[in-house]
């Protein structure tokens, strides 16, 4: 059969969802960009030299990113226990693996930058607002609150990370940019899962919207302040910082939440 005769967009939605949430789909997807890339980078690429000020700013930013990754690692692993379907459980298991890899590659990059005890130090250097966000997400997970956990983690946190990493890549040194590019590829799945799963849920339970709007209002302050601080530290001009939040704002608008 010629390739013109086949088309993936004809499939029914249930079959599509079954496949993309599967472990097999995840495995074949990450194979494309992780094989022969230890710690998410080309092992033959040179490690760029950075000025001290650049290095310090990058260390602080990566430390904040590590807090986000730990939050998502703990959050996703906890959510497996009370996820409402087998598909969601399997997807979250793949997300746990992704978040663990993100934390590992970021700690590795911190070590390359000269941080001797990256694991022990990143929380000290990280943004306070994101630490507060992590604590709040932990409370939602502890309470087995699926709606709030999914919204906080896979919509708010993931879409803000996606936007921030994408923006950072434009100005980052080549090694950090390559590492972030690999992380972004995983983030597409995480934020897409969040928006689509929550979108389907809200269609069935529209009464949940008001409570989630309140959660959004509470968490927005923490997340937006975190990324504003990180952008400032990386030297992104104030005029361009609002662009970073646009993807997040577009996402919540599609779900019907006010900004």
């Amino acid at each position, binding site marked *: 059969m010629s390739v013109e*005769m*086949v088309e*993936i967009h004809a499939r029914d939605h249930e079959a599509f969802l079954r496949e993309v949430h599967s472990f097999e789909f995840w495995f074949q*997807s990450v194979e494309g960009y992780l094989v022969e890339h230890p710690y998410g980078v080309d092992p033959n690429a040179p490690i760029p030299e950075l000025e001290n000020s650049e290095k310090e700013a990058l260390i602080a930013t990566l430390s904040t990113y590590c807090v986000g990754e730990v939050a998502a690692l703990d959050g996703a692993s906890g959510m497996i226990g009370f996820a409402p379907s087998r598909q969601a459980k399997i997807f979250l298991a793949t997300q746990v693996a992704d978040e663990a890899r993100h934390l590992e590659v970021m700690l590795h990059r911190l070590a390359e930058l000269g941080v001797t005890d990256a694991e022990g130090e990143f929380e000290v250097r990280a943004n306070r607002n994101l630490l507060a966000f992590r604590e709040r997400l932990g409370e939602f997970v502890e309470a087995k609150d699926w709606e709030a956990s999914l919204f906080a983690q896979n919509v708010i946190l993931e879409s803000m990370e996606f936007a921030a990493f994408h923006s950072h890549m434009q100005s980052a040194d080549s090694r950090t940019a390559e590492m972030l590019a690999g992380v972004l590829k995983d983030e597409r799945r995480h934020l897409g899962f969040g928006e689509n799963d929550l979108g389907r849920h809200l269609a069935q339970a529209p009464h949940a919207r008001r409570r989630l709007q309140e959660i959004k209002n509470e968490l927005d302050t923490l997340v937006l302040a975190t990324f504003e601080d990180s952008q400032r530290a990386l030297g992104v001009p104030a005029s361009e910082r609002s662009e970073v939040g646009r993807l997040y704002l577009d996402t919540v608008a599609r779900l019907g939440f006010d900004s």
Partner: protein
Amino acid sequence: MTDPLLETTEFEPAKDELESSSFPEREKPRVRYGLEDDTGFDEVPKKYRRFYRRWRGKGDQLAPNEVICPVCRVVIRSARDLRPGDRVYCMPCFSRLTVVRAESGRLEARVEY
């Protein structure tokens, strides 16, 4: 052997609305596109990669068989030209989308949860 998930000889996007007189552009036969080229997109299993590509930013243009996913900003490709009412899937972010014509005249994709 053809992957059963890819085998859809009967597929006609927006088939239900084909006969609607309010969509005269649908009366024209579909243009078919060969998607065998390697777009460099590596975020989905190999057999699906030809259906997606990265948006290359300023200077990039969408072909008649392409739309941008509003959720993850990947370019989605179809084996036929796209028209309002067509459904497409974005595998990189798990989204189901419907093609719409924006006020600007450009084809866009809207998420259908």
